[in-house]
Protein backbone atom coordinates (compact mmCIF):
# COMPACT_ATOMS: atom_id res chain seq x y z
CA UNK A 1 0.00 0.00 0.00
CA UNK A 2 1.60 3.31 -1.03
CA UNK A 3 1.63 6.26 1.31
CA UNK A 4 -1.51 8.40 1.36
CA UNK A 5 0.36 11.37 -0.11
CA UNK A 6 1.32 9.30 -3.16
CA UNK A 7 -2.23 8.24 -4.01
CA UNK A 8 -3.30 10.26 -7.05
CA UNK A 9 -6.81 9.99 -8.52
CA UNK A 10 -6.94 9.43 -12.28
CA UNK A 11 -8.84 11.97 -14.39
CA UNK A 12 -12.24 10.25 -14.23
CA UNK A 13 -11.93 9.35 -10.57
CA UNK A 14 -10.80 12.87 -9.75
CA UNK A 15 -13.96 14.32 -11.29
CA UNK A 16 -16.04 11.78 -9.37
CA UNK A 17 -14.30 12.69 -6.10
CA UNK A 18 -15.05 16.36 -6.76
CA UNK A 19 -18.72 15.65 -7.42
CA UNK A 20 -19.30 13.70 -4.19
CA UNK A 21 -19.30 16.64 -1.71
CA UNK A 22 -21.46 18.74 -4.05
CA UNK A 23 -24.00 15.92 -4.39
CA UNK A 24 -23.94 15.28 -0.65
CA UNK A 25 -24.62 18.95 0.04
CA UNK A 26 -27.52 18.99 -2.46
CA UNK A 27 -29.04 15.83 -0.96
CA UNK A 28 -28.60 17.24 2.55
CA UNK A 29 -30.41 20.44 1.54
CA UNK A 30 -33.29 18.65 -0.18
CA UNK A 31 -33.67 16.33 2.81
CA UNK A 32 -33.62 19.16 5.35
CA UNK A 33 -36.05 21.19 3.26
CA UNK A 34 -38.47 18.25 2.98
CA UNK A 35 -38.19 17.67 6.74
CA UNK A 36 -39.02 21.30 7.58
CA UNK A 37 -41.90 21.36 5.11
CA UNK A 38 -43.40 18.16 6.59
CA UNK A 39 -43.50 19.95 9.96
CA UNK A 40 -44.61 23.33 8.55
CA UNK A 41 -45.83 23.45 4.93
CA UNK A 42 -45.35 27.24 4.77
CA UNK A 43 -41.67 27.16 5.90
CA UNK A 44 -39.64 29.97 4.33
CA UNK A 45 -36.12 29.25 5.61
CA UNK A 46 -35.31 26.23 3.41
CA UNK A 47 -37.54 26.64 0.33
CA UNK A 48 -38.13 23.61 -1.88
CA UNK A 49 -36.49 23.37 -5.28
CA UNK A 50 -39.95 23.77 -6.86
CA UNK A 51 -40.56 27.02 -4.94
CA UNK A 52 -37.20 28.40 -6.10
CA UNK A 53 -37.94 27.41 -9.70
CA UNK A 54 -41.24 29.30 -9.39
CA UNK A 55 -39.44 32.42 -8.24
CA UNK A 56 -36.86 32.11 -11.03
CA UNK A 57 -39.77 32.10 -13.50
CA UNK A 58 -41.37 35.15 -11.86
CA UNK A 59 -38.18 37.19 -11.33
CA UNK A 60 -36.31 36.12 -14.43
CA UNK A 61 -38.93 35.78 -17.15
CA UNK A 62 -41.96 37.92 -16.22
CA UNK A 63 -42.25 41.66 -16.65
CA UNK A 64 -42.88 43.45 -13.37
CA UNK A 65 -46.03 45.58 -14.06
CA UNK A 66 -44.75 48.26 -11.66
CA UNK A 67 -41.48 48.98 -13.47
CA UNK A 68 -42.20 47.49 -16.89
CA UNK A 69 -39.00 45.45 -16.67
CA UNK A 70 -37.96 41.89 -15.88
CA UNK A 71 -36.46 42.23 -12.36
CA UNK A 72 -33.54 39.82 -12.75
CA UNK A 73 -32.55 41.34 -16.09
CA UNK A 74 -32.82 44.94 -14.81
CA UNK A 75 -30.85 44.05 -11.65
CA UNK A 76 -28.15 42.26 -13.64
CA UNK A 77 -27.77 45.10 -16.13
CA UNK A 78 -27.53 47.70 -13.34
CA UNK A 79 -25.07 45.69 -11.24
CA UNK A 80 -22.81 44.66 -14.11
CA UNK A 81 -22.73 48.23 -15.37
CA UNK A 82 -21.50 49.47 -11.98
CA UNK A 83 -19.10 46.54 -11.62
CA UNK A 84 -17.53 46.98 -15.06
CA UNK A 85 -17.23 50.75 -14.63
CA UNK A 86 -15.50 50.43 -11.24
CA UNK A 87 -13.29 47.51 -12.22
CA UNK A 88 -12.44 49.14 -15.56
CA UNK A 89 -11.38 52.40 -13.91
CA UNK A 90 -9.28 50.53 -11.34
CA UNK A 91 -7.63 48.42 -14.06
CA UNK A 92 -6.76 51.41 -16.22
CA UNK A 93 -5.33 53.24 -13.20
CA UNK A 94 -3.34 50.17 -12.16
CA UNK A 95 -1.88 49.83 -15.64
CA UNK A 96 -0.68 53.42 -15.91
CA UNK A 97 0.42 53.97 -12.30
CA UNK A 98 1.72 50.44 -11.78
CA UNK A 99 3.94 50.66 -14.87
CA UNK A 100 5.24 54.10 -13.92
CA UNK A 101 5.91 53.19 -10.27
CA UNK A 102 7.45 49.85 -11.16
CA UNK A 103 9.71 51.16 -13.90
CA UNK A 104 10.72 54.69 -12.92
CA UNK A 105 12.59 55.16 -9.61
CA UNK A 106 11.55 58.82 -9.47
CA UNK A 107 7.84 57.98 -9.63
CA UNK A 108 8.36 55.12 -7.15
CA UNK A 109 9.93 57.52 -4.66
CA UNK A 110 7.16 60.06 -5.22
CA UNK A 111 4.01 57.93 -5.27
CA UNK A 112 5.00 54.66 -3.58
CA UNK A 113 4.35 55.78 0.02
CA UNK A 114 1.01 57.37 -0.90
CA UNK A 115 -0.27 54.23 -2.64
CA UNK A 116 0.97 52.05 0.23
CA UNK A 117 -0.94 54.24 2.70
CA UNK A 118 -4.14 54.25 0.63
CA UNK A 119 -3.99 50.47 0.30
CA UNK A 120 -4.39 49.89 4.05
CA UNK A 121 -7.61 51.96 4.37
CA UNK A 122 -10.60 49.59 4.61
CA UNK A 123 -12.75 50.67 1.63
CA UNK A 124 -16.09 50.13 3.39
CA UNK A 125 -14.94 52.62 6.05
CA UNK A 126 -14.84 55.38 3.45
CA UNK A 127 -18.26 54.48 2.02
CA UNK A 128 -20.01 57.17 4.15
CA UNK A 129 -17.56 59.73 2.79
CA UNK A 130 -18.32 58.60 -0.76
CA UNK A 131 -22.08 58.87 -0.13
CA UNK A 132 -21.59 62.39 1.29
CA UNK A 133 -19.28 63.53 -1.51
CA UNK A 134 -20.83 61.76 -4.50
CA UNK A 135 -24.41 61.39 -3.33
CA UNK A 136 -26.42 58.16 -3.31
CA UNK A 137 -26.42 57.67 -7.10
CA UNK A 138 -24.31 55.55 -9.40
CA UNK A 139 -21.08 57.51 -8.87
CA UNK A 140 -20.54 56.57 -5.23
CA UNK A 141 -21.02 52.84 -5.99
CA UNK A 142 -18.54 52.93 -8.86
CA UNK A 143 -16.07 54.96 -6.81
CA UNK A 144 -16.33 52.48 -3.92
CA UNK A 145 -15.30 49.62 -6.22
CA UNK A 146 -12.52 51.78 -7.64
CA UNK A 147 -11.27 52.79 -4.19
CA UNK A 148 -11.43 49.19 -3.02
CA UNK A 149 -9.47 47.73 -5.94
CA UNK A 150 -7.13 50.37 -7.34
CA UNK A 151 -4.50 50.66 -4.54
CA UNK A 152 -4.10 46.89 -4.34
CA UNK A 153 -3.90 46.48 -8.11
CA UNK A 154 -1.45 49.37 -8.50
CA UNK A 155 0.86 47.92 -5.85
CA UNK A 156 0.63 44.43 -7.26
CA UNK A 157 1.48 45.54 -10.79
CA UNK A 158 4.23 47.91 -9.63
CA UNK A 159 5.85 45.08 -7.66
CA UNK A 160 5.64 42.79 -10.69
CA UNK A 161 7.17 45.38 -13.04
CA UNK A 162 9.89 46.21 -10.51
CA UNK A 163 10.74 42.50 -10.40
CA UNK A 164 11.55 42.35 -14.12
CA UNK A 165 15.25 41.35 -14.07
CA UNK A 166 17.50 44.38 -14.41
CA UNK A 167 19.43 42.42 -17.05
CA UNK A 168 16.45 42.79 -19.40
CA UNK A 169 16.25 46.55 -18.91
CA UNK A 170 20.00 46.92 -19.45
CA UNK A 171 19.87 44.69 -22.50
CA UNK A 172 17.06 46.73 -24.01
CA UNK A 173 19.07 49.93 -23.50
CA UNK A 174 22.15 48.40 -25.13
CA UNK A 175 19.89 47.66 -28.11
CA UNK A 176 19.06 51.35 -28.37
CA UNK A 177 15.70 51.40 -26.58
CA UNK A 178 14.53 54.69 -25.03
CA UNK A 179 12.64 54.84 -21.71
CA UNK A 180 9.42 54.95 -23.73
CA UNK A 181 10.42 51.90 -25.79
CA UNK A 182 11.40 49.96 -22.67
CA UNK A 183 8.06 50.86 -21.08
CA UNK A 184 5.96 49.95 -24.12
CA UNK A 185 7.83 46.97 -25.49
CA UNK A 186 9.54 45.35 -22.50
CA UNK A 187 7.58 46.28 -19.37
CA UNK A 188 4.02 46.63 -20.70
CA UNK A 189 3.77 43.23 -22.43
CA UNK A 190 5.14 41.51 -19.33
CA UNK A 191 2.78 43.50 -17.10
CA UNK A 192 -0.42 42.64 -19.01
CA UNK A 193 -0.73 38.95 -18.03
CA UNK A 194 -0.12 39.94 -14.42
CA UNK A 195 -2.77 42.67 -14.69
CA UNK A 196 -5.32 40.10 -15.87
CA UNK A 197 -4.27 37.78 -13.04
CA UNK A 198 -4.70 40.60 -10.53
CA UNK A 199 -8.07 41.42 -12.12
CA UNK A 200 -9.18 37.83 -11.56
CA UNK A 201 -8.32 38.08 -7.87
CA UNK A 202 -10.13 41.44 -7.68
CA UNK A 203 -13.47 40.27 -9.06
CA UNK A 204 -14.44 38.73 -5.69
CA UNK A 205 -13.75 41.89 -3.63
CA UNK A 206 -15.41 43.97 -6.38
CA UNK A 207 -18.67 42.04 -5.85
CA UNK A 208 -18.38 42.55 -2.09
CA UNK A 209 -18.07 46.32 -2.52
CA UNK A 210 -20.86 46.43 -5.11
CA UNK A 211 -23.34 44.45 -3.02
CA UNK A 212 -22.47 46.48 0.10
CA UNK A 213 -23.13 49.75 -1.69
CA UNK A 214 -26.32 48.43 -3.28
CA UNK A 215 -27.58 47.08 0.05
CA UNK A 216 -27.26 50.50 1.66
CA UNK A 217 -28.57 52.83 -1.02
CA UNK A 218 -30.04 51.74 -4.33
CA UNK A 219 -33.30 51.07 -6.13
CA UNK A 220 -32.13 48.44 -8.58
CA UNK A 221 -29.35 45.85 -8.64
CA UNK A 222 -28.63 42.28 -7.56
CA UNK A 223 -27.43 43.37 -4.10
CA UNK A 224 -30.41 45.70 -3.70
CA UNK A 225 -32.81 42.87 -4.53
CA UNK A 226 -31.51 40.28 -2.08
CA UNK A 227 -31.43 42.80 0.75
CA UNK A 228 -34.96 43.96 -0.18
CA UNK A 229 -36.57 40.51 -0.16
CA UNK A 230 -34.67 39.63 3.05
CA UNK A 231 -37.40 41.64 4.83
CA UNK A 232 -39.91 39.00 3.74
CA UNK A 233 -37.59 36.06 4.52
CA UNK A 234 -37.82 35.29 0.79
CA UNK A 235 -35.10 32.65 0.71
CA UNK A 236 -36.68 31.30 -2.49
CA UNK A 237 -35.54 34.52 -4.21
CA UNK A 238 -32.26 35.03 -2.35
CA UNK A 239 -30.81 31.59 -3.09
CA UNK A 240 -31.32 31.73 -6.89
CA UNK A 241 -29.92 35.29 -6.90
CA UNK A 242 -26.82 34.15 -5.01
CA UNK A 243 -26.44 31.25 -7.46
CA UNK A 244 -26.77 33.70 -10.38
CA UNK A 245 -24.13 36.06 -8.90
CA UNK A 246 -21.78 33.10 -8.44
CA UNK A 247 -22.38 32.00 -12.01
CA UNK A 248 -21.56 35.51 -13.29
CA UNK A 249 -18.36 35.55 -11.21
CA UNK A 250 -17.27 32.16 -12.52
CA UNK A 251 -17.99 33.23 -16.11
CA UNK A 252 -15.87 36.37 -15.68
CA UNK A 253 -13.02 34.38 -14.20
CA UNK A 254 -13.15 31.90 -17.05
CA UNK A 255 -13.28 34.66 -19.67
CA UNK A 256 -10.27 36.42 -18.13
CA UNK A 257 -8.15 33.30 -17.82
CA UNK A 258 -8.85 32.15 -21.37
CA UNK A 259 -8.18 35.66 -22.68
CA UNK A 260 -4.81 35.62 -20.95
CA UNK A 261 -3.95 32.19 -22.35
CA UNK A 262 -4.95 33.26 -25.82
CA UNK A 263 -3.11 36.57 -25.84
CA UNK A 264 0.00 35.71 -23.81
CA UNK A 265 0.92 32.08 -24.49
CA UNK A 266 4.51 32.76 -23.40
CA UNK A 267 3.44 33.48 -19.82
CA UNK A 268 1.55 30.20 -19.42
CA UNK A 269 3.70 27.11 -19.11
CA UNK A 270 6.48 25.99 -21.38
CA UNK A 271 4.63 25.60 -24.66
CA UNK A 272 5.85 27.81 -27.46
CA UNK A 273 2.58 28.33 -29.33
Amino acid at each position, binding site marked *: MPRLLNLRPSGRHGALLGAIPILLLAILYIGASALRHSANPSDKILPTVAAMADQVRIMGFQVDPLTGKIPLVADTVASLGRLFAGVGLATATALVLGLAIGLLPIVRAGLGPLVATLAVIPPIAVLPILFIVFGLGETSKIVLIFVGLAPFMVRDLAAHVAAI*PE*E*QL*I*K*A*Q*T*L*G*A*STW*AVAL*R*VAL*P*QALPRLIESLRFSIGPAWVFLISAEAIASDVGLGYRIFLVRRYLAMDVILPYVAWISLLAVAMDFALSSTSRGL*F*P*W*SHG*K*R*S*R
Partner: protein
Amino acid sequence: MTAPSSTTALAFENVWVEYGDAVILERVSLEVQAGAFVSVVGPSGVGKSTLLRLVLGQEAPTRGRILLDGQPLRAEPGPDRGVVFQRYSVFPHMTVLKNVMFGLECSGRRANARAEAEAMLRRVGLGHSLAAYPSALSGGMQQRLAIAQALIARPRILLLDEPFGALDPGVRVDMHELITELWLEHGLTILMVTHDIREAFKLGTRVLAIDKRRHDPHAPHRYGSTTVYDFPLDKPGAVSPDAAADMVSRMAKRAG
Protein backbone atom coordinates in the same frame (compact mmCIF):
# COMPACT_ATOMS: atom_id res chain seq x y z
CA MET B 1 43.74 35.14 -37.10
CA THR B 2 43.37 38.87 -37.31
CA ALA B 3 46.46 40.84 -36.51
CA PRO B 4 45.93 42.97 -33.41
CA SER B 5 45.07 46.47 -34.53
CA SER B 6 46.87 49.34 -32.87
CA THR B 7 43.80 51.50 -32.20
CA THR B 8 42.55 51.66 -28.63
CA ALA B 9 38.88 50.79 -28.30
CA LEU B 10 38.46 51.08 -24.54
CA ALA B 11 40.65 52.87 -22.02
CA PHE B 12 40.53 53.13 -18.23
CA GLU B 13 42.47 56.12 -16.85
CA ASN B 14 43.20 55.77 -13.13
CA VAL B 15 39.69 54.59 -12.32
CA TRP B 16 38.53 54.29 -8.70
CA VAL B 17 35.21 53.00 -7.40
CA GLU B 18 34.34 53.65 -3.77
CA TYR B 19 31.14 53.07 -1.82
CA GLY B 20 31.55 55.35 1.18
CA ASP B 21 34.58 53.96 3.03
CA ALA B 22 34.82 50.78 1.02
CA VAL B 23 37.19 50.86 -1.94
CA ILE B 24 36.15 48.38 -4.62
CA LEU B 25 38.53 49.27 -7.45
CA GLU B 26 41.62 51.45 -7.21
CA ARG B 27 44.04 52.84 -9.78
CA VAL B 28 42.74 50.76 -12.66
CA SER B 29 44.46 51.88 -15.83
CA LEU B 30 44.31 49.78 -18.94
CA GLU B 31 43.85 49.97 -22.67
CA VAL B 32 41.97 47.46 -24.76
CA GLN B 33 42.95 47.34 -28.43
CA ALA B 34 40.25 47.15 -31.07
CA GLY B 35 39.77 43.53 -32.08
CA ALA B 36 41.04 42.12 -28.80
CA PHE B 37 39.32 39.38 -26.86
CA VAL B 38 40.07 40.27 -23.24
CA SER B 39 39.20 37.83 -20.48
CA VAL B 40 38.90 39.18 -16.94
CA VAL B 41 39.42 36.70 -14.13
CA GLY B 42 39.70 37.01 -10.37
CA PRO B 43 38.34 35.61 -7.11
CA SER B 44 34.67 36.11 -6.24
CA GLY B 45 33.66 39.46 -4.83
CA VAL B 46 36.79 41.18 -6.04
CA GLY B 47 35.17 43.65 -8.39
CA LYS B 48 34.96 41.82 -11.74
CA SER B 49 31.28 42.66 -12.01
CA THR B 50 31.92 46.25 -10.96
CA LEU B 51 34.40 46.54 -13.82
CA LEU B 52 31.74 45.36 -16.25
CA ARG B 53 29.06 47.60 -14.74
CA LEU B 54 31.41 50.54 -15.28
CA VAL B 55 31.81 49.78 -18.96
CA LEU B 56 28.06 49.16 -19.31
CA GLY B 57 27.36 52.51 -17.69
CA GLN B 58 25.30 50.99 -14.88
CA GLU B 59 27.54 52.96 -12.54
CA ALA B 60 30.07 55.74 -12.88
CA PRO B 61 33.66 55.75 -11.53
CA THR B 62 34.22 57.72 -8.31
CA ARG B 63 37.45 59.02 -9.80
CA GLY B 64 39.15 58.68 -13.18
CA ARG B 65 37.79 58.36 -16.72
CA ILE B 66 36.70 55.63 -19.06
CA LEU B 67 37.03 56.29 -22.78
CA LEU B 68 35.36 54.39 -25.59
CA ASP B 69 36.96 55.18 -28.97
CA GLY B 70 38.60 58.18 -27.32
CA GLN B 71 35.31 59.65 -26.11
CA PRO B 72 34.34 59.75 -22.42
CA LEU B 73 31.79 57.03 -21.75
CA ARG B 74 28.22 58.03 -21.06
CA ALA B 75 27.23 56.65 -17.61
CA GLU B 76 24.17 54.97 -19.07
CA PRO B 77 23.82 51.80 -21.15
CA GLY B 78 23.72 52.52 -24.87
CA PRO B 79 23.88 50.80 -28.25
CA ASP B 80 27.67 51.33 -28.53
CA ARG B 81 28.11 48.57 -25.91
CA GLY B 82 26.47 45.18 -26.33
CA VAL B 83 26.06 42.69 -23.51
CA VAL B 84 25.32 39.02 -22.87
CA PHE B 85 24.52 38.17 -19.26
CA GLN B 86 24.63 34.74 -17.68
CA ARG B 87 20.83 34.78 -17.33
CA TYR B 88 17.77 36.93 -18.15
CA SER B 89 19.40 38.33 -21.27
CA VAL B 90 16.47 37.67 -23.60
CA PHE B 91 12.88 38.91 -23.53
CA PRO B 92 10.52 36.10 -22.49
CA HIS B 93 7.49 37.70 -24.15
CA MET B 94 9.02 37.90 -27.63
CA THR B 95 9.60 35.07 -30.06
CA VAL B 96 13.17 34.28 -31.03
CA LEU B 97 12.82 36.34 -34.22
CA LYS B 98 11.24 39.33 -32.43
CA ASN B 99 13.97 39.25 -29.80
CA VAL B 100 16.55 39.89 -32.51
CA MET B 101 14.41 42.31 -34.52
CA PHE B 102 13.89 44.44 -31.39
CA GLY B 103 17.38 45.94 -31.66
CA LEU B 104 16.91 46.77 -35.34
CA GLU B 105 13.54 48.41 -34.68
CA CYS B 106 14.88 50.46 -31.76
CA SER B 107 17.72 51.84 -33.85
CA GLY B 108 15.48 52.62 -36.81
CA ARG B 109 16.94 49.92 -39.10
CA ARG B 110 13.49 48.69 -40.01
CA ALA B 111 14.12 48.02 -43.69
CA ASN B 112 15.13 44.38 -44.14
CA ALA B 113 14.95 43.92 -40.36
CA ARG B 114 13.32 40.55 -40.73
CA ALA B 115 15.78 39.20 -43.29
CA GLU B 116 18.75 40.54 -41.33
CA ALA B 117 17.49 39.01 -38.08
CA GLU B 118 16.79 35.67 -39.77
CA ALA B 119 20.29 35.59 -41.25
CA MET B 120 21.85 36.30 -37.85
CA LEU B 121 19.73 33.61 -36.21
CA ARG B 122 20.67 31.06 -38.88
CA ARG B 123 24.31 31.96 -38.24
CA VAL B 124 24.06 31.14 -34.53
CA GLY B 125 22.10 27.94 -35.24
CA LEU B 126 18.58 29.08 -34.34
CA GLY B 127 17.21 29.13 -37.90
CA HIS B 128 14.61 26.49 -37.03
CA SER B 129 13.31 28.15 -33.86
CA LEU B 130 12.27 31.57 -35.19
CA ALA B 131 8.69 31.35 -33.90
CA ALA B 132 9.55 29.76 -30.53
CA TYR B 133 9.47 31.65 -27.25
CA PRO B 134 12.67 31.61 -25.16
CA SER B 135 11.09 29.44 -22.45
CA ALA B 136 10.98 26.63 -25.04
CA LEU B 137 14.75 26.87 -25.65
CA SER B 138 17.53 25.10 -23.77
CA GLY B 139 20.05 27.16 -21.78
CA GLY B 140 22.61 26.97 -24.59
CA MET B 141 20.08 28.03 -27.22
CA GLN B 142 18.97 30.94 -25.05
CA GLN B 143 22.58 32.13 -24.90
CA ARG B 144 22.89 31.75 -28.68
CA LEU B 145 19.82 33.98 -28.94
CA ALA B 146 21.31 36.49 -26.48
CA ILE B 147 24.49 36.66 -28.56
CA ALA B 148 22.56 37.10 -31.83
CA GLN B 149 20.48 39.82 -30.19
CA ALA B 150 23.57 41.68 -29.00
CA LEU B 151 25.47 41.35 -32.29
CA ILE B 152 22.65 42.63 -34.51
CA ALA B 153 23.03 46.07 -32.87
CA ARG B 154 26.68 46.16 -34.06
CA PRO B 155 28.19 47.31 -30.75
CA ARG B 156 31.67 48.87 -30.61
CA ILE B 157 32.50 46.49 -27.79
CA LEU B 158 30.77 43.28 -26.69
CA LEU B 159 30.61 42.59 -22.95
CA LEU B 160 30.18 39.02 -21.76
CA ASP B 161 29.28 38.49 -18.09
CA GLU B 162 29.90 34.82 -17.22
CA PRO B 163 28.03 34.01 -20.43
CA PHE B 164 28.64 30.26 -20.36
CA GLY B 165 28.72 29.80 -16.57
CA ALA B 166 25.31 28.13 -16.33
CA LEU B 167 25.79 25.72 -19.25
CA ASP B 168 26.69 22.02 -19.36
CA PRO B 169 30.35 21.33 -20.21
CA GLY B 170 29.59 19.91 -23.68
CA VAL B 171 27.35 22.83 -24.58
CA ARG B 172 29.98 25.22 -23.25
CA VAL B 173 32.57 23.85 -25.71
CA ASP B 174 30.14 24.43 -28.60
CA MET B 175 29.54 27.98 -27.38
CA HIS B 176 33.31 28.58 -27.19
CA GLU B 177 33.57 27.66 -30.87
CA LEU B 178 30.63 29.87 -31.80
CA ILE B 179 31.87 32.96 -29.98
CA THR B 180 35.40 32.54 -31.39
CA GLU B 181 34.03 32.26 -34.93
CA LEU B 182 31.79 35.29 -34.48
CA TRP B 183 34.65 37.27 -32.97
CA LEU B 184 36.76 36.62 -36.07
CA GLU B 185 33.94 37.10 -38.61
CA HIS B 186 32.73 40.40 -37.19
CA GLY B 187 36.10 41.74 -36.01
CA LEU B 188 34.60 42.21 -32.55
CA THR B 189 36.23 43.71 -29.49
CA ILE B 190 35.20 41.54 -26.56
CA LEU B 191 35.52 41.98 -22.80
CA MET B 192 34.55 38.78 -21.01
CA VAL B 193 34.28 38.32 -17.26
CA THR B 194 34.58 34.69 -16.17
CA HIS B 195 35.54 32.68 -13.14
CA ASP B 196 36.72 29.81 -15.34
CA ILE B 197 40.45 30.36 -15.85
CA ARG B 198 40.75 27.69 -18.56
CA GLU B 199 37.97 29.38 -20.49
CA ALA B 200 39.73 32.73 -20.05
CA PHE B 201 42.97 31.41 -21.58
CA LYS B 202 41.24 29.35 -24.25
CA LEU B 203 39.20 32.23 -25.67
CA GLY B 204 41.14 35.39 -24.86
CA THR B 205 43.91 37.16 -26.72
CA ARG B 206 44.70 38.71 -23.37
CA VAL B 207 43.89 37.69 -19.82
CA LEU B 208 43.53 40.26 -17.05
CA ALA B 209 43.50 39.11 -13.45
CA ILE B 210 42.15 41.56 -10.94
CA ASP B 211 42.64 41.32 -7.21
CA LYS B 212 43.66 43.41 -4.21
CA ARG B 213 47.37 44.31 -4.20
CA ARG B 214 47.33 45.40 -0.60
CA HIS B 215 45.34 43.95 2.23
CA ASP B 216 44.75 45.35 5.73
CA PRO B 217 43.38 42.53 7.89
CA HIS B 218 41.84 45.07 10.28
CA ALA B 219 40.04 46.94 7.52
CA PRO B 220 39.51 44.55 4.60
CA HIS B 221 37.51 47.11 2.64
CA ARG B 222 40.23 49.77 2.90
CA TYR B 223 42.01 48.78 -0.30
CA GLY B 224 40.44 48.07 -3.66
CA SER B 225 41.29 45.72 -6.49
CA THR B 226 43.31 46.48 -9.56
CA THR B 227 44.90 44.49 -12.37
CA VAL B 228 47.51 42.22 -10.81
CA TYR B 229 48.38 40.16 -13.90
CA ASP B 230 48.10 41.08 -17.54
CA PHE B 231 48.85 38.22 -19.92
CA PRO B 232 49.03 39.26 -23.56
CA LEU B 233 48.62 36.15 -25.68
CA ASP B 234 49.65 36.06 -29.32
CA LYS B 235 46.46 34.26 -30.22
CA PRO B 236 43.81 32.25 -28.46
CA GLY B 237 45.31 29.27 -26.68
CA ALA B 238 48.91 30.38 -27.33
CA VAL B 239 49.92 30.78 -23.72
CA SER B 240 52.56 28.27 -22.68
CA PRO B 241 51.15 25.45 -20.58
CA ASP B 242 53.64 26.34 -17.80
CA ALA B 243 52.46 29.91 -17.60
CA ALA B 244 48.84 28.79 -17.54
CA ALA B 245 49.48 26.20 -14.85
CA ASP B 246 51.39 28.76 -12.78
CA MET B 247 48.54 31.23 -13.21
CA VAL B 248 45.93 28.68 -12.25
CA SER B 249 47.77 27.65 -9.10
CA ARG B 250 48.31 31.24 -8.00
CA MET B 251 44.65 32.08 -8.56
CA ALA B 252 43.53 28.94 -6.75
CA LYS B 253 45.73 29.87 -3.80
CA ARG B 254 44.24 33.34 -3.66
CA ALA B 255 40.68 32.13 -4.01
CA GLY B 256 41.22 29.48 -1.30
